[in-house]
């Protein structure tokens, strides 16, 4: 599903350089990425999603070389194929819970918003225990509830690839297991691949494989 070939990326003016050796993630595989803060875990997810473009190397997703696409094509690919749970949720304060969940459908002609989608969004929200808050504004939600909304938004289009950046970081231990279970179930139900960044080592046994970023990072001289 994902193939990374000798990837090198650095932010302009920064001393940090991310070097990722060749590695593959198979379809339907659930992979956890761990590593210390600032090691480039989020950057890797952004590279896979095509939000960032590597200086060297290639990123392939489902046989599409994402890193070679131009900006509009990368956006189109992302909205059609990737569900992304951002670390800081990236929800829109002026929309309510339901509107945030179906937001990708409102901004892309590739996704068709219809009654089925709305029903599915409501069901997904119910499964995430926010079914009674669909009309509530997201700036009135707790951090945990916002995280659930972000997960719902990522899962609703039933993408082939789900990228999750600390998807359970703001949840209490009881909810953490429940939400992770739902995330895994949803990913498995649609035969999607999961690449998740986490700091929580208790969750690692739930993944098929763990990638440790301590091995990738190098600092520029």
């Amino acid at each position: 599903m994902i193939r990374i070939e000798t990837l090198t990326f650095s932010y302009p003016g920064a001393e940090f350089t991310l070097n990722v050796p060749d590695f593959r993630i198979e379809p339907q595989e659930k992979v956890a990425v761990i590593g210390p803060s600032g090691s480039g875990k989020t950057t890797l997810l952004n590279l896979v999603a095509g939000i960032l473009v590597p200086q060297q190397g290639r990123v392939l997703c489902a046989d599409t070389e994402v890193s070679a696409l131009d900006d509009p094509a990368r956006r189109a690919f992302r909205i059609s194929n990737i569900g992304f749970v951002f670390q800081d949720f990236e929800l829109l304060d002026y929309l309510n819970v339901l509107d945030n969940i179906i937001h990708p459908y409102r901004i892309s002609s590739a996704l068709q918003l219809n009654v089925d989608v709305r029903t599915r969004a409501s069901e997904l929200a119910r499964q995430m225990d926010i079914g009674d808050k669909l009309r509530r504004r997201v700036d009135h939600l707790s951090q945990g509830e916002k995280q659930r909304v972000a997960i719902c938004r990522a899962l609703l289009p039933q993408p082939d690839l789900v990228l999750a950046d600390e998807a359970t970081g703001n949840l209490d231990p009881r909810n953490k297991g429940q939400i992770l279970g739902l995330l895994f179930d949803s990913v498995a139900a649609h035969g999607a691949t999961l690449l998740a960044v986490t700091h929580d080592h208790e969750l690692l046994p739930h993944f098929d494989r763990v990638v440790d970023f301590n091995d990738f990072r190098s600092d520029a001289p």
Partner: protein
Amino acid sequence: MDSLYLAWRYLAFNKLRTATLVICVTLIAILPLALQVLLAESERQLLARAGSTPLLLGARGSALDLAMNALYFADETPELISMAADEAIATSGLAMPIPLYVRFQARRFPIVGTTLDYFGFRGLRIAQGRQLALLGECVIGADVAERLGIGVGDSLLSSPEALFDLAGVYPLKMQVVGVLARAHSADDRAVFVDLKTAWVVQGLVHGHEDVTRGEDSSVIIDRTQDNVVASARLVEYTEITADNIDSFHFHGSPDSYPLSAMIVVPNDDKAGTLLRGRYLGSEPPYQLAVPKTVIEGLLATIFRIKEVLDAVILIVAVATVLALVLVFALSLRLRQREIQTVFHIGGSRSTIARLLAAEIVIILLAAALLCALGITVMQPFSDELVRVLFIA
């Protein structure tokens, strides 16, 4: 459609900012529109009245003051002329004179002293009651009746010219004997009386107990065979009734009694031209003005001022539009996080452009609606506004 929905949600969330933008756009749009409506209405009103009045006779001086007073009963009274002028026109055999004496007010409405010819000339119809017949009676316009809540059988007091002048003329209590049908003109806002009643209001014609009989010697200062001098104790009547109407009398020659203007209705075009010729030059103490020409001159001035105003409004509009562009540009910076979210999810630049365009469309639509509402609300009052702005 989704762009419109998202834009609507954003604008609804940022109510204060949205309201400010809508108000700015509305004000910029409504100012020239309202001005246009008012000017169109003023042009219609002024020209309609002026066009139906062939000639105006008045004292030399401002033809505009003369026309505004005689046609629209404006507060500004022109130099007065005397009834002798009326006689001169009547004896010329060239035209019908309709004298006007517009100087006093009753509860802020002008009292128009005239003759019955005026009603026929203007095509005014009595809706309730009857026409003027006796001294001290008045017929009121439809607006006067409506706003003061009075009708036939009620009475109306004239307003004293100088409130603290104890030696001055006391208000006259006038009986309302008729209410005119609405004419959609200045006549709706006037209190019509017979010329003599207007002179009673001024104190030129008055009534009091008969001092020649000498029933109360305390009011007599001096008495000769030809003359009786009464003191200030002599009470003048402030209401004309059946009992005292006979005591009202003129002092001096009625020919010297004042008029503010005279409508002159020539028998034909030739008569009109002849009359105008008689009043040309510097010798005659009067002017014979063509109201339509006078009002067209006024309108030309108003429209010249409007052109200046339009230019000022245009400059303000350009400045406001630039400010709005700046607001949008700055809001784009403030909304970087939101825009990044759209990009991160996979939205395109055109998505953002559509969202912004939708916001602008909604703001413009809201402003257009407010404008339309404002103009619609203003329209029924435009008649009154024109009077306040251009006539009163």
